[in-house]
């Protein structure tokens, strides 16, 4: 075995070991690496009870309303199978609208209303000019 073959093999072994180690570390922290839970996961009881967590879902069309003269707004988040009512006091991001993907951070109150302390808009990976979007929605 030439010295350079030995060095190459050595590097490969180091890479393999560190790769395997990081695979298992990421695997065991899988739940912590999730940025948000879906409404179905929350209803299945996966959410922590004692601290704040994030819910991600689409804002149900027609569910949004705002109390007159206040910043408090209420809307329903859904993932298609389960939905959760959310209340938030504050300024909503530009991309917030009905049908949009939203991530809300907060806790449930005693009336099972999710009180959000932060609302972020999630953007999808689709980009198109307004005319094409109008055409696509009219086809649906």
């Amino acid at each position, binding site marked *: 075995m030439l010295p*350079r073959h030995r*060095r*190459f093999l050595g*590097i490969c072994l*180091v*890479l393999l070991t*560190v*790769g395997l180690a*990081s695979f298992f570390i*990421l695997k065991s922290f*899988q739940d912590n*690496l*999730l*940025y*948000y*839970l*879906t409404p179905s996961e929350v209803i299945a009881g996966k959410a922590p009870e004692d601290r704040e967590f994030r819910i*991600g879902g689409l804002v149900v069309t027609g569910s949004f309303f705002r109390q007159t003269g206040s910043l408090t707004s209420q809307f329903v988040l859904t993932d298609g199978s389960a939905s959760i009512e959310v209340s938030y006091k504050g300024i*909503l*991001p*530009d*991309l*917030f609208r009905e049908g949009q993907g939203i*991530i809300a951070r907060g806790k449930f109150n005693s009336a099972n209303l999710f009180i959000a302390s*932060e*609302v*972020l*808009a*999630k*953007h*999808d*990976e*689709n*980009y*198109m*000019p*307004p*005319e*094409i*979007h*109008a055409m696509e929605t009219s086809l649906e």
Partner: protein
Amino acid sequence: MNFKRIYKYGSPPNYFRLCLKYENWFTVPGFLLIIIGCYGGLFLAPPDYQMGDAFRIIYFHVPSAYLSMSAYAYMALAALVGIVWRSNVAFSVAKSIAPFGASFTFLALVTGMLWGKPMWGTAWVWDARLTSEFILLLLYLGYMLLHASIREQKKADRAASVLAIVGVINLPIIHYSVVWWNTLHQASTISKLSSPSIAGEMLWPLLVMIFGYGFFFWGVICRAGATELLKREKRSNWVKEYVEEHQS
């Protein structure tokens, strides 16, 4: 395996001459593509249906992010060649890539924050994609720090190279972070197998910018790598000959 041909072209004097000769073959097309891409992206492409004109930062964010990752792959490959063949040429290429890779990672993070603040409602979250890209910046900085902290050149090269090679594990994590975990960051738009989910008149300036950044990067690396090599080999005969040749 027979590496004789590569050994000949990869010898320090030969590599140095090749770099200086072909440098402009990268920088000139790089600049042209970036100018065309900027014009296409900022003036010709239509605004997005949701984000309006704000989406145009994609033309700087995505190319920077692409380059931050591919530059790391090149750096790690050069480091591997350097370790296996004890090659000064490969080590100087790896070392010269690090600051530029770090710069593009920084650009990707900053443009992402500028984009995230108005659109998501926040400039920074610790989701899997943003965190792993931040770790990439730390890997570049770690490589540079480790290299600078060891006085003996050969030891510094070897130690920093091992760090660079091990850090490659972060690349698939960055790429697949949006698939493996729920993230605030959206999924990939163009690097997926099905057709890209972006309109054609918005896509071409993006591709032009990605290639422009790539060409520009290689042009810069030609120059930076050659300079690094010159510093390392300052006592060798070919450098003396080169200097004498160019003094008159």
